């Protein structure tokens, strides 16, 4: 019976085209635990970095003295109702000295706030790369399931400089893939080499098609940014780190919320903790 064979062909042909929607960031909230000149420097850097949002943005600031703890911070954020939050890793935490956490304030804030959180490198840590917080000429959006994630692409596209590039990256975890193929190799009724080739090809085809449609649709909507694609197999963290260094990425955009769990999205946390040199936008 070839029913399944033809259903597969038609399912593969039923694609998920990208749907463009312009994202507006009318209200931006900057949160800092710094005071005085240091705070002003960070606020200035943030405004300069996000200059592409235009002059009509309503900027507000929460300084160290404006909140006392996590609960107080969340109340203030709720009150401000921002479209975008700008802060840095290990906000009000000494743990910036060790590269193992984002700090309790950010851990909670990223999961509770509806608005995306732009996390800059810690101002005192000295780990920021030279081009950090300068421009958004090259923005990279990553997720472990890029296909159909219109919001991620819309936000990333909005924060890419006009005439800049948006790199859409999708890495399939090679270790997991190899483990499944190893299991398949023990099943006599499935031809291992054929399964490896066809499953691998299909896994990478879907995000490639989606990225292609992102480029087409953005062009149709008169956006001048260039869409680049990186789809492949590998180790997530190592591969994204390699891309970040090789291509001098200015901003990394990724999802952090997971409906199935309270903690940050499975892939997002190790990336957010590990990639400390450039700003990250956590959705």
């Amino acid at each position, binding site marked *: 019976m070839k*029913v399944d064979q033809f259903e597969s062909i*038609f399912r593969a042909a039923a*694609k998920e*085209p990208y749907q463009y929607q312009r994202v507006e960031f009318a209200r931006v909230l900057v949160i800092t635990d710094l005071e005085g000149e240091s705070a002003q420097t960070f606020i200035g850097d943030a405004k300069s970095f996000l200059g592409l949002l235009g002059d009509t943005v309503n900027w507000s600031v929460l300084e160290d003295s404006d909140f006392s703890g996590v609960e107080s911070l969340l109340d203030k954020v709720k009150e401000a109702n921002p479209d975008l939050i700008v802060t840095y890793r290990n906000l009000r935490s000494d743990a910036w000295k060790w590269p193992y956490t984002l700090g309790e304030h950010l851990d909670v804030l990223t999961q509770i706030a509806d608005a995306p959180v732009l996390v800059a490198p810690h101002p005192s840590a000295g780990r920021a790369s030279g081009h950090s917080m300068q421009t958004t000429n090259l923005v990279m959006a990553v997720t472990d399931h890029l296909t159909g994630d219109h919001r991620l692409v819309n936000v990333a596209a909005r924060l890419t400089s006009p005439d800049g590039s948006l790199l859409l990256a999708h890495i399939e975890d090679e270790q997991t893939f190899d483990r499944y193929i190893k299991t398949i190799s023990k099943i006599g009724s499935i031809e291992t080499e054929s399964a490896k080739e066809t499953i691998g090809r299909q896994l990478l085809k879907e995000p490639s098609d989606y990225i292609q449609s992102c480029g087409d649709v953005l062009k149709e909507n008169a956006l001048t940014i260039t869409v680049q694609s990186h789809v492949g197999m590998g180790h997530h963290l190592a591969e994204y780190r390699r891309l970040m260094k090789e291509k001098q990425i200015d901003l990394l955009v990724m999802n952090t919320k997971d409906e199935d769990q309270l903690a940050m999205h499975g892939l997002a946390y190790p990336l957010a903790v590990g990639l400390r040199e450039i700003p990250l936008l956590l959705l």
Partner: protein
Amino acid sequence: MFLTFASTSHTAPEVSSGTTLVFGAILVGLIVCLALEEKIHAKKSVIAGIFALISLILGAAFHLLPVGPVLVGGHEINLPVYIPAIDWNVIAIILGASLFVDVTSKSGLFTWIAIKLTKFSKGDPLVLMVLYGLMTVVFSAVLNNVTAMIIVGSLSAVSLSKLNRNHQLLSFLLVEGLLTNVGGLLTLISSVPNIIVGTAAGISFVKFFLVAAPFVVVATAITLVMGAWLFKIRKLGSEEERSEAALLVSAFDENDGIESKGFFWFSTFMLLAFIGVIATASILPWIKDLGMGYVALGFAGIMLIRFKAVADKFYQALDWDLLGFFAALFVVINVMEHALVLEGIGHGLAAIIGLGEVLGTGAILVSAAVASSVTDNIPLAAMLAKILQSLGTDPSSPLWWSVIFGANLGGNITPIGSASTLVAVTIMHKHKLPMSFGGFIVKAVPFAIIQIVIAVAYVLLFLR
């Protein structure tokens, strides 16, 4: 045919009525087992193969079989008695056409057509049902009923799911299943009964098409109108619904299944050429001597050049069960011929025919339909064709058409009446849609009755 000619050159032995009854019982046993194929969990080829073995050994025991050398093109050749019993032209057509369609489908041509039509419908359910219905008829005519049902049924499942209209899938599958048997009437090579009866009657491809096409057009239109009315398939009401549906189907990419543009266009050309050559096979020099089986095998061979390194994968994908079934069936029928079972049935048939030109022709069509609704229409067609041949029926007689229409349309009465309706039910069950044997009959019988009534009227009014 050379082999048939040679095998009939033997003198027929005397056969007692008791012997004929024994073999008649074997034939009934075969028909019953084929009808209960699903219940006894046995493939057609195994069932027919076992009955062929029994028939042969008993035929040899009763000295019924024309053993000894056979004349092939004037040369005596020693062949086992069961080899000339098989109609190799039919086997060659089925083998070649299956292989050709299988390789052609790799070009993405059929899925391209299917998705183009889906997008053309803009997701409107009524337009979708009409287009899928027409596609079913055309695919059944050009390919075969089962492949047509698989392609259109699979697409229906995926596109209706995309349109969030899973509740209409059962209606679509049922109408498509019924239309496979209507479309299967369109050409000489659209279904196996057509090939068997058409070949026996000496009906050319073009003649077959010209006679069958008006009926197919009318029956398709009526089936679609009935389907839309009975299953309440309506056009989308609001502009919002239309835009949403259009957006959803626009996500289909018709080019996704096309791996090579060159092969796609080559396949399109070859498909058209295949239809053209098959249609004119009876008048083309040289080709007319080699027959349609040669054409089918030839086109399959040319297509396989593209996949020459992996041709064995296509051989593996062939429906060997169906081919084995045909071979065994021809052997059984051949033995039945020698045991005078077909002659006995022929007497019964002659009595029906004797009811008069109107009543007899109509009765043959209806009884062929009823018989093929509960058992495989292929042995029925093969048996009736053989009997009509032995009765010396004129090639222009409407009786041939009664058998053709009856054997095809009977498949619409029950889910086991034809392989394509069985595929439709299988797809329903795959998608957890409830459809019992009785449930299918209740839903399908109104359609089948109307189609059979139109067929009877058509044969009596236009083909006498």
